[in-house]
């Protein structure tokens, strides 16, 4: 345990004053730990990692870590990430977003970055709510739930983020909860190793808002809920469709081969590049 703590501290910014801004019991810290362990086990150099975020609770994550870090605008993390990856394909580009960030305001960018198969690892922390602004319903909030902006019940149905990523063309799609921290670390490691667009959906717990709205008042209760409702993708095959509806399927959902955008563009340049660079 001590060694693992030590590992985390190798990656945290000593120059940045803690404490962090997250609420006690928030799942983002578990994700940050898993992300650091996955990067460390992958043997990536700190100088080669670019960690990008959008806006919201997840937006603050890069601030604390000793990489090239970029805190962008709401929903647009993947656009900046695209520019960085294409400008310097040797960089390992990771974008951390929230559910509202990635699929509401950033939904357009999300599907098109997946379609282009840009070499970015995107991690979407899905806590089913807009936590930073006070618990409004998001594109992943369950139908019917009363929230601070749906006081009479949410009349919208929820996105399946992994399904969206798969259909849009992501070459790697996986899901874990923050309760399954070891699995989370493993699938992030697999996602990092992909050349194309990879998506990791992280089911997290916002105890402060979403927990209160669904009647689970403590982080422990929410984590237990994750434990009891998650089912590994390998076991999910044996369940009937009706049973699956109430479950969170975790594990690697999509893993396919397709050339990444920067690889195709490199070929394109090789075809038309002029010898002397003079037009």
């Amino acid at each position, binding site marked *: 345990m001590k060694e693992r703590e030590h590992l985390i501290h190798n990656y945290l910014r000593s120059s940045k004053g803690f404490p962090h801004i997250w609420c006690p019991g928030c799942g983002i810290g578990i994700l940050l730990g898993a992300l650091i362990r996955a990067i460390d086990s992958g043997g990536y150099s*700190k100088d080669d990692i670019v960690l990008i975020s959008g806006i919201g609770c997840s937006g603050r994550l890069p601030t604390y870590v000793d990489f090239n870090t970029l805190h962008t605008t709401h929903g647009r993390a993947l656009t900046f990430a695209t520019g960085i990856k294409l400008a310097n394909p040797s960089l390992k580009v990771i974008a951390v977003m929230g559910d509202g960030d990635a699929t509401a305001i950033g939904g*357009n960018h999300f599907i098109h970055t997946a379609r282009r198969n840009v070499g970015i690892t995107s991690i979407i922390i899905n806590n089913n709510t807009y936590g930073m602004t006070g618990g409004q319903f998001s594109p992943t909030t369950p139908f019917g739930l009363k929230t601070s902006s749906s006081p009479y019940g949410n009349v919208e149905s929820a996105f399946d983020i992994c399904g969206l990523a798969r259909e849009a063309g992501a070459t790697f799609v996986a899901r874990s909860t923050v309760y399954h921290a070891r699995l989370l670390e493993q699938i992030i490691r697999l996602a990092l190793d992909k050349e194309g667009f990879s998506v990791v959906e992280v089911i997290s717990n916002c105890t402060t808002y979403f927990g209160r709205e669904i009647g689970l008042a403590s982080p422990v209760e929410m984590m237990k809920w994750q434990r009891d409702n998650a089912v590994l993708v390998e076991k999910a095959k044996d369940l009937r469709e009706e049973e699956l509806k109430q479950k969170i399927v975790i594990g690697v959902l999509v893993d396919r081969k397709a050339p990444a955008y920067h690889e195709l563009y490199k070929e394109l340049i090789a075809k038309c590049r002029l010898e002397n660079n003079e037009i």
Partner: protein
Amino acid sequence: MTKERRNDRILLQGSEACVRGALMAGCRFYAGYPITPATEIMEHMSRQLPKVGGVFIQMEDEIASLGAVIGASLAGLKSMTATSGPGFSLMQEHISFACMAEVPCVIVNVMRGGPSTGLPTLPAQGDVMQARWGAHGDHPIIVLCPSSTYEFFDLTVKAFNLSERYRIPVILLTDEVVAHMRESVALPPKEKIVIEERRKPSVPPEWYTPYDDKQTDVPPMPAFGEGYRYHVTGLAHDIRGYPTTRSDEVGYLIHRLFSKISRDFHLLQWFDSYQTEDSVVTIIAYGSVARSALYAVKAARENGLKVGLVKLKVLWPFMRQTVMRFLESSAKVLVPEMNMGQLSREVKRVNQGRCEIVTLNKADGTMLSPKEILRSLEDIYP
């Protein structure tokens, strides 16, 4: 003109000249979205950039385009995008980000008639104020305005230079006429062109302070991947780049963002003047209107009227020092614009009773003709 000289000249469209200037300045990344009348710039870029090893990408919208441009710039490439009014509106969010995070980038806005979808194929100058104040928050901005094919080339090179020098988004504000017009031009040879590169830190990473520079107010900027692992954010930040709400730190940041430009106002007085030595009425114009104004001045001179023209190449920061000189030497100043009166507000602000300001406005999709400007000159001539 000798035969050789004529051979140096080529027929270029404004958009093409812009692309040549960008590539000459070292632009190696372009992200954009199709929009009339700026699409030609994107098409030329898609053809030329791969030839020099650069990257072109067509994004899903203009917000994404400028996001990708800023990302590529952070990764070390000189980057640009081009659009027109509706797309320019979408870009405001990221113009604001680039100002706050001090990321060099060049944005071309080929103005068309507005508001809204307006007149996609026709010229206007309705985005003068949007270019200055469209992005949220207090921020300085540099806006250059070409009026010919050659100037489009020249000012594109300079836009990149200023952007790299000051770490600020630079907007090239032009109009449909200048972007689509074809002119015979002689472009200067490469060795005659001054190209500036962004200053990189000279200290080791552990000594690097990403958001402070007492000498110039413009901190040196490493690219991502060069070993300087620093934080970039649109939040108000301290000199290390970390979010802060401390008023002394925020105040210092905002003052530095402004002073890095304001300390060099005197270097940004770019204009051409014609026959202003003895002009009683002086025209202050920019963009394609300045071309009509020149014809009007020539015609008026033939009729014996002492009139002159000042063509502004920098719209923002507004050239107060230059404009004031002409306000003091003229009895009247005429400001013709293809809008309902935008830059004339600035002229009036600087004037403060020095002389009489007359505006000539048109926003119906047609150019201000030499005839219209001449008529106005004759009407107001004392």
